[in-house]
């Protein structure tokens, strides 16, 4: 069984928002709701500054706090490690929003369902690749099987020493080059 994850190389991301728009498209989100958020991080002080754009979305954590707190088991993890929301079971209580350390949960209007990035999951499998990966103008995103040492994503994580955004906190499956 595959264990899906993603690599985001902030050293290649110019912050063009194409991924956000592609994601809105495939997920049918209106212009003012988005599963991908951007944080501009400044390090250092003038003139020794480094600035990066950090796109953040659901990290598909192995220890997903949003899943643990969900009172109706609406949030679940597939065998291939993708964290999903069963919209029929979601009661919109927002516990998951409070629990997510990445602020990746979005309450949709007007359904009230609290959704998030699903790796473009439809009919039993993730997108090949997910829309955000396919549209990236600079190849800053790689998607693949974290359990396959021959996969591009595994090789790139090893080569770049990419790390989850918050270390081992939730055993996130999105790795960042920063």
């Amino acid at each position, binding site marked *: 069984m595959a264990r899906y994850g993603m690599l985001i190389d902030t050293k290649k991301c110019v912050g063009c928002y194409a991924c956000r728009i592609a994601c*809105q*498209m*495939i*997920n*049918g*989100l*209106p*212009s003012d709701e988005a599963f991908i958020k951007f944080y501009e991080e400044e390090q250092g002080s003038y003139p020794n500054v480094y600035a990066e754009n950090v796109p953040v979305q659901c990290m598909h954590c192995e220890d997903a706090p949003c899943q643990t707190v969900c009172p109706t088991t609406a949030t679940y993890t597939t065998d291939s490690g993708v964290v999903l929301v069963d919209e029929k079971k979601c009661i919109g209580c927002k516990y998951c929003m409070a629990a997510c350390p990445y602020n990746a949960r979005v309450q949709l*209007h*007007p*359904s009230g369902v609290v959704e998030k990035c699903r790796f*473009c999951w*439809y*009919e039993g499998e993730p*997108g090949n690749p997910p*829309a955000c990966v396919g549209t990236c103008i600079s190849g800053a995103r790689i998607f693949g099987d974290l359990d396959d040492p021959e996969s591009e994503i595994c090789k790139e994580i090893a080569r770049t020493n990419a790390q989850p955004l918050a270390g081992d906190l939730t055993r996130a499956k999105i790795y960042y080059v920063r």
Partner: protein
Amino acid sequence: MKDTRKARIAAMTDQLRTLGALFVRLGDQSDAAYEAASVASVDPAVRHRLETDLLTPGGAASLLPVESLYKMWADPSWRGRDGACAFGASKHLYMGDPAQHMMALYERLEIDVPPEFAAMPDHLTLLCEVAALYGDAGNHPALRSFLNEHLDWLGAYDAELAACTSALDGSTASTLCTKERLQELNAAIAHVRSLLKEVQNTTDRLEAELGKVEDPRGQNRRNEER
């Protein structure tokens, strides 16, 4: 008894058709029901403002009574991944799902849409005419579902009209904002809202007469709230 009810419903849909005809730019050469506008005792200057600024696409305060503009453009919820579409959930775009359905419906009913409505087969004027057609034909089930599916956005339209009332007040483009023009425009908005209220009243009475319909999909509610 039954015929009286049929006639009553047809009379109401006829009112809808007449009212609906007032939501277009009739200009000075329309062969449609402009006489109705003249008897609605509206100041010609206000009516003119309504037609050029509000009811002309791309007008200064353009707010068209076109169903697509107030609903999701291509609702992805029933389409699945292969149906995922550019800006599907966006509003304020012409030729959305409602327009697509209307075109399919016109084809089945062997109806031609005049060229000036090519971008808006789901214009209120035409929707009212189709309702009247069902009313004339006595097809009450079809009329009931049509009202439920295609005339459920009037509240959203009215809300945008309300928000527009003083839209030009704050604008920095002084050229547009002669006082007279603003007054006319605000009067035009008030006028079109009163017409809209009549449409809403008529559809309410029609729905009461026809009996409530079950929402078959639950989608309308979603659309409306969005």
